[in-house]
């Protein structure tokens, strides 16, 4: 009886299908992903059980670091550019070069008094926790003004103008306060008072999601 011959099969697997899947997923992730914005300071947000997520876009972020320094940022680049123009009109003795203006549109968040902003954009001052922060009361500012209030105002006006021009489609800029959990309350209070002073009575506190029962399932 002749031995049964087992046909030798190739161990090669066709990878084409797997390749397709891989690249399909890749495309999906590329399209849906949003890069983590560069942040000048590390913020340890307090936890809460609020379920609503922060707005996707067109948001004004007031970041308060652990030692109470304030960083300000607007996510929309068009608004940023226009906001800077407004601020330059309000503080006429600070000059910006075109290169600095361009750099400003790509700066996610910053924390220096206005007269130091050109130096920051040149890279002469580091935009990190060593930055002095934006003056929230007039005594800390060289111009004896609450510079945060001016930034908030400039940002909102810029957003409003761009919306009227139809350049951005959104329901108006959202304001969010992102504070470190161990920040002293008066620092936050000052920021909130500034917001109220600028007629921003409704804003968000950015928190990380805490485990446990949620608002919905809570009693």
């Amino acid at each position, binding site marked *: 009886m002749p031995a049964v011959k087992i046909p030798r099969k190739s161990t090669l697997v066709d990878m084409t299908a797997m*390749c397709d899947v*891989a690249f399909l997923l890749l495309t999906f992730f590329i399209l849906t992903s949003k890069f983590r914005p560069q942040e000048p300071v590390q913020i340890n947000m307090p936890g809460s059980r609020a379920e609503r997520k922060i707005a996707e876009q067109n948001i004004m972020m007031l970041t308060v670091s652990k030692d109470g320094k304030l960083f300000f940022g607007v996510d929309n680049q068009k608004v940023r550019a226009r906001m800077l123009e407004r601020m330059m009109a309000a503080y006429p003795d600070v000059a910006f070069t075109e290169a600095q203006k361009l750099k400003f549109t790509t700066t996610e968040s910053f924390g220096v008094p206005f007269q130091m902003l050109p130096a920051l954009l040149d890279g002469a001052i580091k935009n990190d926790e060593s930055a002095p922060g934006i003056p929230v009361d007039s005594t800390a500012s060289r111009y004896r003004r609450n510079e945060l209030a001016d930034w908030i105002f400039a940002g909102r006006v810029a957003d409003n103008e761009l919306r009227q021009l139809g350049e951005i489609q959104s329901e108006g800029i959202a304001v969010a306060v992102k504070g470190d959990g161990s920040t002293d*309350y008066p620092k936050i209070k000052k920021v909130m008072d500034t917001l109220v002073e600028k007629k921003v009575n409704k804003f968000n506190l950015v*928190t990380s999601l805490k485990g446990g029962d949620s608002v919905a399932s809570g009693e």
Partner: protein
Amino acid sequence: MAEMNTGDSGGKHKGGKRSKKVSTRVDMTPMVDLGFLLITFFVLVTTFNKPSAMDLNLPAKDDNKEDKKPEIKASKVVQFVLGTDNKLYHFRGIENIVVDSIDFSSSKSIRSVIEAREKEVIDQWGSRDSMLLFIKPMHASKYKNMVDILDEVNIAQIKRFALVDFSEADSLMLMNAIAGLPLTASSGQ
């Protein structure tokens, strides 16, 4: 694995030239490797959990109008004073101050405090909506504690609450209460 077969291994054929049969199969393995590498990269870089947003509405400040403080029965007012080191002082009206050192991380205890105070108000006034909650963070308190309290207030669905400045009068009253002295400062609320 790379498999770029060239049909036959160049054996001699008699007769006329035959064009070599080249397999069109390309080995996809490196490409798959690359694909998954990039996927991994994007998965890791994307922001996974977006932070959540807690709404806060503060009353508008009108400089032109001298706002008259409405008069509220002291027994309807529950006050939470946030102190240093995660301390919470809570009292209703102007009597019966309780000093609690609350572990804000668990926040179960805050909830029980809110519930207990709510019950007191309901017992006296019949409805939970008559309670007015004042949150007064001291100067030395931390932002985290404020968020914790606000979160609990949201969970308890308390409609009437306010963030109020911690005043000198409050400070005096609290200190006297802690020292066991009679309350001198009447609450102006």
